[in-house]
């Protein structure tokens, strides 16, 4: 076993373990932290694939920004985990059986018989001065500019959707707008009911 193979198995086993813990951890904060671990080890694997820029971006963007935000949200929300996990153990036997079957089937097909080094051959390693970042930027803004723009449009949809779904006046809100209060007119608060100014027969005698 070479040095890189050892590193690969090291990272891969941590990744699988962390991935499993994300969905089995009882505490949502722990689950989020395991997700951070999963991203971090995945970045390590990408580093092995000579995708340095992507590996660092994964750490910076996902671990550094997205997951921190995620942790904040998880801590702010009062998530009732017991309710969420209802039925977890009931479904586990069937779901576990299907999952194990799927993994075995996939292992049979995706093993080294079809995608091994003898069939595919390892790509030649790049020279030391090869710039991953530059190459990525070159294709991103030339060949794939259409896909790049589409990704940007998808982000715009996400913004519009998030605002449309969250920006609303709640019906049960007790929020008071002082400007509206100042502008209030007498007619908004007071209703004058005009009544016939006649005396009830016999009402005068009572007061006397």
């Amino acid at each position, binding site marked *: 076993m070479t040095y890189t193979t050892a590193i690969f198995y090291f990272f891969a086993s941590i990744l699988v373990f962390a991935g499993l813990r994300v969905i089995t951890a009882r505490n949502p904060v722990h689950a989020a932290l395991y997700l951070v671990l999963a991203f971090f080890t995945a970045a390590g694997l990408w580093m092995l694939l000579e995708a340095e820029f992507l590996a660092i971006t994964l750490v910076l963007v996902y671990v550094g920004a997205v997951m921190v935000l995620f942790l904040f949200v998880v801590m702010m929300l009062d998530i009732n985990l017991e309710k969420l996990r209802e039925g977890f153990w009931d479904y586990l036997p069937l779901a576990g059986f299907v999952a194990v079957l799927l993994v075995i089937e996939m292992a049979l*097909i*995706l093993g080294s018989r*079809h*995608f091994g080094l003898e*069939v595919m051959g390892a790509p030649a390693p790049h020279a030391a001065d090869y710039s991953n970042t530059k190459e990525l930027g*070159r294709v991103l803004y*030339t*060949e*794939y*500019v*259409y*896909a790049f723009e*589409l*990704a940007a*449009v*998808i982000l*715009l*949809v*996400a913004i*519009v*959707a998030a*605002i*449309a*779904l969250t920006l*609303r006046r709640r*019906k049960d809100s007790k929020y008071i707008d002082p400007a509206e209060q100042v502008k209030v007119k007498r007619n908004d608060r007071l209703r004058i009911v005009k009544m016939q100014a006649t005396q009830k027969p016999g009402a005068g005698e009572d007061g006397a």
Partner: protein
Amino acid sequence: MRHALMQFAPAFPEIFVLIMISLILVVDAAVDDGKRFLAYFLSLVTLAGASFLTLRDFSTLPVLTLGGLFIDDPLSDVLKLFLYLSVAIVLVYSRDYLRQRGLYKGEFFVLALFALLGMMVMVSASHFLTLYLGLELLSLSLYAMVALQRDSSVATEAAMKYFVLGALASGMLLYGMSMVYGVTGSLGLGDIAIALQDGTDLRIPLVFGIVFIVAGLAFKLGAVPFHMWIPDVYHGAPTAMTLFIGSAPKIAAFAFVIRILGQGLESQVSDWRGMLVILAVLSMALGNIAAIAQSNLKRMLAYSAISHMGFMLLGILAGSQNGYGSAMFYVLVYALMSLGGFGMILLLSRAGFEADRLEDFKGLNRRSPWLAFMMLLLMFSMAGVPPTVGFYAKLSVLQAVVEIGYVWLAVAAVLFSLIGAFYYLRIVKLMYFDAPHDAAPIKASPDARVVMSVNGLAILALGIMPQPLMAVCIHAIRASF
């Protein structure tokens, strides 16, 4: 390395739609609640402008541009024109409904146009990357549209189901695509077709990838056994959104399937044909039988959508140009029928009343003979009764199936559509032979009534003269393959 200057002209409709979306976003943010019709009006202008641009540059030969990610061929142009048309009809039908429910906001129109843009991207994609991005653009807009009615817990639940299952389907699709990439070393559909022309040593991983791709496609189409989300989403979403989901995206899904299976993986037809046969038979069986038990019209039409997608798959699994052409005809006709069916629910609804139960259609003939007649045409067409166009659409896909020697499949399809005729004709019975359930006058706006009349009469006219549309479909397929 030099790059050839990109040809932008074939993508003008997409660029125009994106510019107009941005404009509507800005305009709608600047005006107050009384002027929401501006967004409505500008959306219709966008559709008209895009139609003009597509018609002006109507292509006769496939043009590959934007780095090989974008293809402009007769197939994509014809489908785009039908996409504009169905989105426009959706906007007209749903205007009053949205206004009565406080959903008449710029966001609805912006999201609808974003979804349209996603469908346009899917329709003229020639690369797995653009196919996937277009699909996500469409799906994300649809999830948001379903959830737009925030105070309705049913709509929120439907959106959640749609989102989770949609994400799962996207994952399957991506996994299958990655397998195909592993085997062929390319993501471009043209390159994949060339790489697979003479067979491959990696047949098993390729079939493995195709299984995942077909599963993902079936999820998006709503074919059994990947159909579970359809009834809940159709039922839970506000009817205007159901109308949208049930029409134009079906056309885009057809293009999606035809691009991947028909163009990219054409040489593997013997592998995916068997999978599609299973999907088609199960969809027709479950869709038609489960629809009988429904008392909610939206849910019934959802099961009917499942069975119609099964029928459409019959044309695709034929794997011939005739088959693709008849599947295209089928999906265009289905979009028209679906627009009419859900549109009728919208026309009959009013503030605080959804008109989506079967009993709400009781005695419609006495309340409005003309609308009842339109609904009769739509139901006859969905059931496949001549002389409506649904009959011809079914006939042409069955012909394609018989051509490849699957006579038993055609017989099964006919039997299932006979079962299906029961619940379509039940609506007709309710409308004509039962006493009205409520006698409130129908308050549909005149423009929606006119569009509904055109919609219903088009079903009849196309049924009497199906040849022009069929010729367009066959021509589009011939010129693009």
